[in-house]
């Protein structure tokens, strides 16, 4: 299933969201890295998700797939973030762990 690019971009956008002050509330027991670390991590993961898609499907199809999955991932993230922010954060972690396994499926 070629969804690993979408899972990585879901995690990437979660980092970028949590790097913003207004999205850091409501996650109290969780100790978050600093905003700066999250921002850098988010952009790195976003680049990784693009690289994974391009590596897997070639430049033309890879970029198309990357943009498509990125849009769906961030739309789902925003829906989940507005409803259950903790679940969104947890899902980002789970997705990131699953992504390498999906890549070899």
């Amino acid at each position, binding site marked *: 299933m070629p*969804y690993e690019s979408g899972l990585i971009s879901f995690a990437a956008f979660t980092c970028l*969201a949590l790097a913003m002050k*207004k999205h850091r509330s409501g996650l109290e027991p969780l100790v978050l890295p600093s905003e700066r670390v999250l921002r850098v991590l988010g952009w790195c993961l976003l680049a990784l998700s693009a690289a994974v898609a391009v590596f897997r499907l070639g430049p033309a199809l890879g970029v198309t797939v990357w943009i498509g999955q990125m849009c769906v991932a961030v739309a789902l*993230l*925003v829906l989940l973030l507005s409803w259950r922010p903790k679940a969104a954060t947890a899902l980002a972690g789970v997705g990131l762990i699953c992504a390498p396994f999906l890549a070899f499926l």
Partner: protein
Amino acid sequence: MNVRPSFPAPAPPARALRQSMAWIHAWLGLLAGWILFAMFLTGTASYFRPEITQWMQPELRSTSVPAEQAAQAAIAHMQATTPNDQQWFIYLPDDRTAVTRVFARAKPNPEKPPARRPELKLDPATGQSLEARDTRGGEHFYRFHFQLQLPHPWGRWLAGVCAMFMLAAIISGVITHKRIFVDFFTLRWRKGQRSWLDAHNASAVLALPFHAMITYTGLITLVAMYMPWPVKANFDKPDAFTAAAYGAPAEAKATGTPAPLLPVGPMIQAAGRAWSGDAPRTVVIRNPGDTASTVTLLRATGGRLNARPDSITFSGATGQELSRSPSPGPAIATAGVMLGLHLGHFASPALRWVYFLLGLTGAAMVGTGLVLWVVKRRKPNAAPFFGLKLVERLNIGAIACLPSGMAAYLLANRLIPADLPGRAELEVKAMFWTWFGLAVVSLQRPARRAWIETLGLATLAFAALPVVNAATTDRGLVASLRTGDWLFAGFDLAMLAIAALCGLAAFKASRKPQPPSQKTSVRAPAAASPKPAPAKESVDAL
């Protein structure tokens, strides 16, 4: 600026630009919104066009056979039934279609023009004619999404005008939206107008690459119709342009001397060698049984972004290759890729669902925009003015009644007897009578009740689909899950998911609206307010 402006200050250029863009955005979006919503929803359904067609002909089961066998079986059938036709178009089955489709055109007869013959459905393995209920299938949603069920060319023109409005609304919307990055992840529920604005922004911004791509490529697909003058200025006939752009397959007049048509298997294999192993999608045979017969193979486009198929033409009598489509130049390749991006035929099942979800965000963007127009202008403790009532009723008709219409189309497919003459038209009528009929009936109810009840009805209609499918066919959800028929199982599950979505919308609409608090009070549009609103709030007017 070193001169201090005196009060009242004229709006700074940036804000003036934003306000004029907000005005354009609101009115372009409103005028085209109702049609755009229908175009988005039916267009999104069209990503599953072959699957919908398969579901709507449950008598047919897919069998997978090699292209050579399917093509040869179809040719054998045509040679046995109508060997003297001028042309046979053979659409080969693939992993998304169950049957071979054949469209045959008889030789022109100057005395009596031959009647247009219906498309044949053949068993891919044996070439035997298959009987299945008459239906437009997924083709209906696809055609409606750019022809709007209007006579040619008005439907395509109306769809094009709406797409142009949409493109302008996207650009003006991006300019007006000042907090694109600050509010990137923001979605707040149960805050009245604020929430509608958030939902509109989120559905638009987060899938912006898709919205811009789908609108632009949709327009470009029909650009030769909307802007015919460059072609007219440079070519005498449209055919000359087509030949110059895409190449013309070698064609010769029939000689009248009979010659047997060679087997197409070796030609398909030769084409496969030229196309790095790809199979043909369509086989076009001209003048079968003549010494001048030709066999043109069109390449399947699955997996490649460019939707314009390559083609190779062989002589049917000698098997020699006569011509092949020129390798496309940059302009033709770009046009082909744009068409491909719009249609999404290249998409694997995984990516097809991505396309589907992105299409739904498009419908959500248009829908929330339409609702926002009303919510923003509704004043508490004041009777709504006529325009507001009109827009709200049209919103109900377009947003809440169309899903019921689409469900009615699918329900009609199962409920109208399979052998009733003219049933395909009846299915289409069921969709429009339900859609528009429901919109008219909903006028009898107060607006809030109308939203709840029409959405509730859509929930019931979609939830009824798997039930009716199980009752009228032997391919119900339980049976298809047991036999591993993923198309039918997936279709039924998707219908249940859509029913859940409609139900959630009805439930949300039935919640008591929040009394507008001080913070989130409904305000007049900034453009109409006499004094300039504070910078932060002027954005809220969008």
